[in-house]
């Protein structure tokens, strides 16, 4: 580019900097000071220890703030803050509160800043936060195993039964899979928004879910098209399709693991145990889904193990993350990615179904397919009763 060209590009930029500088220096001309101090203190994690509570906090407001008082269950309490009581913007701190908490009781912790702004953190049913040790690690891993790998493997066991079906029936089972996945997509997205809402508002948790979902969807589609052009393939191999599904479902199961792990670490153990049974029943159908594309081929046992592992093992990872290092913003991102992966699988299967029926000059939304799709949605809907309260 010639010198003149560069200058024409720079002129708007220089003017923009000038305007911003003017506004920063002189204000917008409407309001000088906010009516009330704006202070945003976030409680990221409450760790329950033998001696009390350990809070991780961050200042995500526009100005520095000072933590001046702490109340636990409507009682002013002693505390210490590290590194110091005044947190700069985006600075993180730890608050230690020695408190004789009661197992299973709810506890409310209020942090009050110098300007009287109150930030509240709540423990629904207080219990010791699991320490990161070997036995806890194994226990949580076991939960993930029961929720992820076991039901999916059980679902895959229907494979020989489904194998006896004709092409039309196989297609209706694929339609059923689309129903299952649609339910999972909506559920994952909703969970993502729920967790995202808990993240500090400056990070915009909901947008993280949407960014995660849309980018994952487009990346997978793009990668796909690139692969197909490179290998000059017409579409997915059945195993490739099953693998894709296992990956999407795996990311979804990571979210389920997250939910279970964090519910245990937040003290809702009774709920957590029930969740395990519920998710296990719920997830059996995911195995059926993964097995469906394979009906036209001859998979081997190790293929099943691989698929079960890919779809189920992330639940173990999720449980660990949920129990030991849970943070809403990461949860939102993972669930967003999960939702994106699932919608991509829905897209691929639907396209394949439509193509297959077009080749055979049949309507793609046949009564059989519609029934399969409906049953898929309904199975998920009713088995979800076990995990919704």
């Amino acid at each position, binding site marked *: 580019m010639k010198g003149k060209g560069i200058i024409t590009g720079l002129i708007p930029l220089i003017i923009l900097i000038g305007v911003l500088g003017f506004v920063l220096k002189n204000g917008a001309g409407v309001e000088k000071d906010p009516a009330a101090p704006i202070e945003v203190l976030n409680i990221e994690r409450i760790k329950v220890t*033998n*001696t*009390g509570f350990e809070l991780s906090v961050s200042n995500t407001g526009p100005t520095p703030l*000072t933590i*001046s*008082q702490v*109340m636990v269950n*409507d*009682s*002013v*309490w*002693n505390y210490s803050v590290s590194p110091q*009581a005044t947190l700069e913007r985006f600075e993180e701190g730890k608050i230690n509160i*020695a*408190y*004789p*908490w*009661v*197992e*299973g*009781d709810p506890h409310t912790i*209020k942090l*009050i800043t*110098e*300007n*009287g*702004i*109150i930030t509240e953190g709540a423990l629904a*049913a207080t*219990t010791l936060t699991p320490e990161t040790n070997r*036995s*806890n690690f194994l*226990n949580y891993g*076991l*939960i993930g*195993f*029961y929720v992820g*790998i*076991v*039901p999916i*493997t*059980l679902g*895959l*066991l229907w*494979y*020989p039964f489904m*194998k006896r079906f004709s092409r039309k029936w196989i297609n209706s089972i694929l339609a059923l899979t689309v129903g299952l996945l649609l339910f999972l997509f909506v559920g994952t997205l909703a969970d993502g928004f729920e967790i995202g809402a808990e993240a500090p508002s400056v990070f915009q948790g909901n947008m993280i879910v949407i960014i995660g979902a849309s980018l994952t969807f487009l990346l997978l589609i793009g990668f796909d098209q690139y692969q197909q052009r490179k290998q000059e393939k017409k579409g997915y191999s059945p195993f490739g399709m099953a693998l894709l599904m296992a990956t999407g479902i795996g990311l979804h199961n990571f979210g389920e693991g997250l939910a279970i792990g964090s519910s*245990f670490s937040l003290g809702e*153990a*009774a709920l*957590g*145990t029930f969740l*395990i*049974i519920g998710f*296990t029943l719920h997830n059996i159908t995911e195995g059926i889904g993964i097995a469906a594309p394979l009906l036209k081929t*001859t*998979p*081997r*046992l190790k293929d*099943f193990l691989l698929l079960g592992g890919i779809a189920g093992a992330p639940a173990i990872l999720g449980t660990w993350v949920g129990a030991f290092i849970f943070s809403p913003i990461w949860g939102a991102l993972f669930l967003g990615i999960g939702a994106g992966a699932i919608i991509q699988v829905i897209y691929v299967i639907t396209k394949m179904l439509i193509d297959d029926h077009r080749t055979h000059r049949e309507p793609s939304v046949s009564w059989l397919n519609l029934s399969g799709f409906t049953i898929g949605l309904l199975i998920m809907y009713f088995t979800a009763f076990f995990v919704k309260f």
Partner: protein
Amino acid sequence: MSEENKVSRRDILKMGTAGAFGVAGTYYFNKMAQFPTVAKAANGSSHKTSHHSNHSNMIDKTKTTGYKMAERLLTEFDYGKVTKLPNGQTLREYEVVAIDKEIEIAKGIKFPGWTYNGTIPGPTFRCTEGDLLRFHFINKGSHPHSIHFHGIHPPEMDGLTSIFPGQKFTYEFEAKPYGLQIYHCHVLPLARHIHKGLYGNFIIDPKKPREPAFELNMVMNGFDLDLDGANEFYTVNGYAFAFMNHPIKIKKDQLVRIYLSNLTEFDLLNSFHLHANYFTYYPTGRNDNPSQFTDTIMQCQGERGIIEVRFPYAGTYMFHAHVSEFAELGWMGFFEVE
């Protein structure tokens, strides 16, 4: 169908066994897991290891601005500028200025208050029954305010008229009846104007003086920081745990007289409980009212009375609101008898 057999029946059985093992494991999970399904009361281990010792919350030996205000209001009485009228009557003139002021109500917590003469509660006005009183009120605040005195006086001196920012007004009336009165702003919205800090004690001494005593002024109040209609802090003389970290020093067997009033907003009642001793309580500060010999009294909003007590033993005596929640949110202190 030969292709199908690549997954052999034996393989299927293997997978089935794994699955069945998993399901069984799920149901036995409760037993092997360390997570309780039933919530239990703490077993004491957390108490043994806790560094928390009894009544050690809010230890703060520093004398902050807020503490100094509460301490000053405890023993400071405003007798006004005293002159004699030609008829021999005593004239007391007081200057009262409404000021918007940030008050420290607990260590490090600022409250945007509306004050009489810059403190919450306002000054404790004191006079003798029969005195002529003139309160020169100047409103330097941002809102209209007034002073409504309890007692007997002409209705036009009752403080129902708003005095606007920048305006002045003189309330003039004779001090009667003797006893403990209160005063507060009576501009709408009432709850907001009172809660913001516009109130105080107003003592009318009887003509025949009371027995000499060590006299203390205590106004029970509360502060709602987030404006949700519930107080975050409960205090006496406006500062949380003031007399806990700096106990009120008293001599053994000395007569102590406490002028106690309740100006807590948003809660129906407040109370006063004294440990290890009994006191005589005179409702509204009247000797002719039926008095009580007790260790706990309660007052509804605007209620007040005089507590008289002697301490027969040396040592520290706790006093606090007997609503435990109020006590733990700041309304708690000590007498130190020596």
